[in-house]
Structures are given as structure tokens and as C-alpha cells.
């Protein structure tokens, strides 16, 4: 089973004091090395701060864009890990080790793996690593 772990926190790296951010990067490196070694790792990325975001909508065939993220919350999406785990509880255990979980929170979302989805996304087999 695949799970997407969305990391949300009040501050992203760019908003932290330099020393704190350096330490945080180090923690992420250790965590990512560990889940690569354990085989849980499928993919991950850090996102630039929400002030770099653009929100896109199409209404009546016309594109409209607005600055910023499409939801206003105190906590912002800072990055994600896509992990492979035996079940939801194993995914929770992996998510709990994400450094950001100690400052913000991590939302764990099961990845849809039904046939219709896999076909629509062009994955030929269930094993496709998206």
C-alpha cells in the first residue's frame, strides 16, 4: 500500500533562523536515509513557501489565477513523502518519524490504487511506482 505523508507546519525552512534550518535539514537527511534503507521510501520533495504559489482555476473556459495557496490556514504544506507500508498503522509509524511531525503535523493519505485510477493515470500494473 502507498501512503502520501503531507507535512504541514507554521514555518517552512525559509522562515526559520539559519541555524535551526540547518539542523532541520540534517534531521531530514537522516530520516530520508533511514527510510531509503528500510525500503519505505518511494519519493519525496520539499516545497517552496506558499508565497511562491499560484492557484489556478478554470471557469467558463477561462483561466483565472490568484496569488498564494488556495486555502488560508496557519499551517502550510511544506513537503511530502510518498511511502510504501504494509498498512495504515505502519504508515503512521513512518510518518511519526518525519522531523516535521515534532513541530507541525503530518497528514497521512492512502493513495488510490483501484483499477480505474491506475488506468486513468497510465500505470499498467498495481506495482507501478508513481
Amino acid at each position: 500500500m502507498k501512503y502520501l505523508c503531507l507535512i504541514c507546519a507554521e514555518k517552512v525552512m525559509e522562515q526559520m533562523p539559519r541555524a535551526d534550518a540547518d539542523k532541520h535539514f540534517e534531521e531530514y537527511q537522516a530520516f530520508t536515509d533511514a527510510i531509503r534503507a528500510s525500503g519505505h521510501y518511494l519519493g519525496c520533495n520539499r516545497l517552496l513557501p506558499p508565497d511562491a504559489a499560484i492557484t489556478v482555476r478554470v471557469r467558463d473556459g477561462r483561466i483565472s489565477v490568484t496569488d498564494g495557496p488556495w486555502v488560508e490556514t496557519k499551517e502550510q504544506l511544506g513537503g511530502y513523502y510518498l511511502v510504501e507500508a504494509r498498512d495504515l498503522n505502519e504508515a503512521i509509524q513512518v510518518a511519526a518519524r518525519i522531523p516535521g511531525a515534532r513541530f507541525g503535523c503530518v497528514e497521512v493519505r492512502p493513495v488510490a490504487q483501484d483499477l480505474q485510477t491506475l488506468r486513468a493515470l497510465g500505470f499498467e500494473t498495481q506495482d507501478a511506482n508513481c
Partner: protein
Amino acid sequence: MVDRDAASDTGQQPSAAAVRGKVEEIYRTESRRVFATLIRLLGDFDLAEEGLHDAFRAALEQWPQQGLPANPRSWLVSAGRFKAVDALRRRARFEFVEDLDDRPDPASEGAADGDNPGDGVEDDRLRLIFTCCHPALSAEAQIALTLREVCGLTTEEIARAFLVAPPTLAQRIVRAKARIRDARIPYEVPERAELPARLDSVLRVIYLVFNEGYSASVGDTLTRAELSAEAIRLGRLLVDLIPEPEALGLLALMLIHESRRLARSTPSGDLVLLDEQDRSQWQRGLIAEGTALVERALVAGPAGPYALQAAIAAVHAEAPTAAGTDWVQIVGLYDLLLQREPSPVVELNRAVAMAMRDGAAAGLAAIDAILVRGELADYHLAHAARADLCRRLGRNAEARVSYQRALTLTMQAPERRFLERRLTELAA
């Protein structure tokens, strides 16, 4: 489980695929044992789960080159413990260090156990069952933990079987494990003196799991049949490890119920009552095994509630027809059961058996006596049983009222269809 292509390209090793298959087989047969031992060695469920995962991961990487170890389980326990301790040390750099001091020091403890895990492995499985069924946990948590940690089912599978949302079930498991840790619930088989009470809670969890799979009325019937199979597997394990009379009795009861699974519903899922079942469909092998276990339980000591229920089920199972059943013996067994465990539901069953032994009128009087006390007023089976006896006595108007009362009280679709069918027959 252990995943993907760690063992894929080892070049000159032609047996890589074979080794991989072997690892998967060992995962199926041994992973819960290895896990149980790792919990004892590491003192923590989550750490043990990580260690288990890493050990199988390492096996996939190393066994294709190095060959299968002489004792795979021993290898996995050692690897799992080593990996977990290593991970803990690395993590301690960033996390609260006192966390580490809280745990028993895995490195210093019981090296001999890891080197020779053949010793006490079955005790570890028993420890795991008793911990998962600890009375400090709610019944729901006990069931979820037992199925996940002892049987190895996934959170999603358990959630589907119990018609609960996976996040709800996942939280139940996380909280139960936190409770085990916070309340410092010891990872041990209870002392002899404590055993009967603690065993009760284990037997109850196993029987609940079985019934959840047996009274299939809602949800995915296939998943539910698997729950019964898991319960029987647990029952067998328990009988192997602690052959207490009630453990024998529970396994016997489950096997004899299971023997009737095919006969108790039509292909379209309609309910078939015991007296109308095609007895040639009963699985004789399961009945023979169950009956032998009942006999062992009954000679082992004063019969407990599971052994008595199993004995009743065995008498039914041995009868050639409903009419040819030894009802005298069945009523007698219900009397013993009532002495051990007074309950209006048992009384109701005794009344139905009495109707077969002494006639419908005697049974009806007994049921009315229970209903008058009000205890089973909202229990649909009490009204259904009453209706059935009225029907047999030709008191159709009374039968109709009771069937209707039963119908308003049950939500189970097959039961509803059964009651509706009886009502239609009465009208005809």
C-alpha cells in the same frame, strides 16, 4: 510486507528468485513469531515492528548471496534486534535522549535468547496474545490488536471486516499500544493463580472474532469467513500452548459451528435453521475433531461454559435428524450450563430444547416465563422462538404477533427475510 526489488539482480546467483520466494514463505510462517520475540527483547511494539521489517529487508538483500542461514528465525531475530538498536541510537541524536533510557536495554538483555530463539519462542507468542487481550484495554482494542499483531492482518483488512473506517481502527491500535506502554503492562504469561481470569479474556476475544465471522449478515462475507478461520487458528495455537479445558472447549465449539457453515445458509444468503439443514453438508472431519476435543475437555475437570456449549453442539452434530436428536441430554447440558453461567439467553435455548423433549406447550410456557421477567423483551430471537412454538401449536394469530415483534427488532437482512417468509406462510 517486505517489498520490491532488493534481491533482484545478483547476477551469477540463479537462485535469487527462489530465495525471494523462500523469504516470502518464511515471512508468512515465521514473521509473527519473530515479532513476538522482538517485542520481548526490545520492550516496545513499534520498535519491534520496525526491527521485523528491517530484518526481512536484510534477508532479501543478503540471503541470495550468502545462502539461507541454518536457522532463519534465529537469524531474523538477531538482525531485527541489531537493526532496531542501531536505529534507536542514530535517532537518539535528534530525539529526546531520556526516551532511550526508558526502555530496557536490548543489547544487554538475554543474548542467549537471540542466539538460540528456539527456546521460549512459543512462550513469546503466548505473551503477545495475553498482552493484546489485557483487561486494561477495551474489548474493541483487544480484538483489533490481536488480529493485527498476533494474526498479522493489516489495519485495512480488519477495518473492512468490522465495517469501521480505517482511520478509526488505526487510532484504536495506536492508542492501545500507547496504553500498553504508559500503563507498563508487562509482556508476560500470567502467573498460574491469575491464569483462569486472564485466559477468560483471551478466550472471549477469540470467540468474538469467530462470531464476527460466523454471524455473517452484513458486509463482505468472504472477509468474514476469514475472520472465523483466524479465530480457529488462534484457538489451535492456544490449545497447543495451554491445553486448559476451556481452551479445548472453545476450539471444539468453533470447529463444530464451522462444520455447519455451508449448510446454514442458502446460496442466496438466506438463513437455514438447524432442524432444516441438509446434514450431509456438515463437514464430518471438523465434527470428529471437535467431538474429540470436547471429550478431552470434559474428562480434564469440571466442565466450563465453552466445553458445555461445545458438548451441546456435539450432540446436535451426532444426531441423524432434528427429531432424532438426544434432547434429554441437551436439556441436561443446558441445566449444567445454567448452573455455571446463569443467563436468560441460555434459559431461552433450554426452553427451545425442552419444547423438543416435552412438547411445544412446555417450551412455550418456559419462554413466556422468561419474557414476563422482561429480560429478553427486546431480543428478537426470543420472539422468533415463541412465534415458532405458537405456530407448531396452531395458535396462528399469536404466532403472527410474535413474528412481527421479532421483525421490528432485527436489522440483519437474512433474519428479516426468514421472518417475512414465515409470516407469509402463516397467511397462506
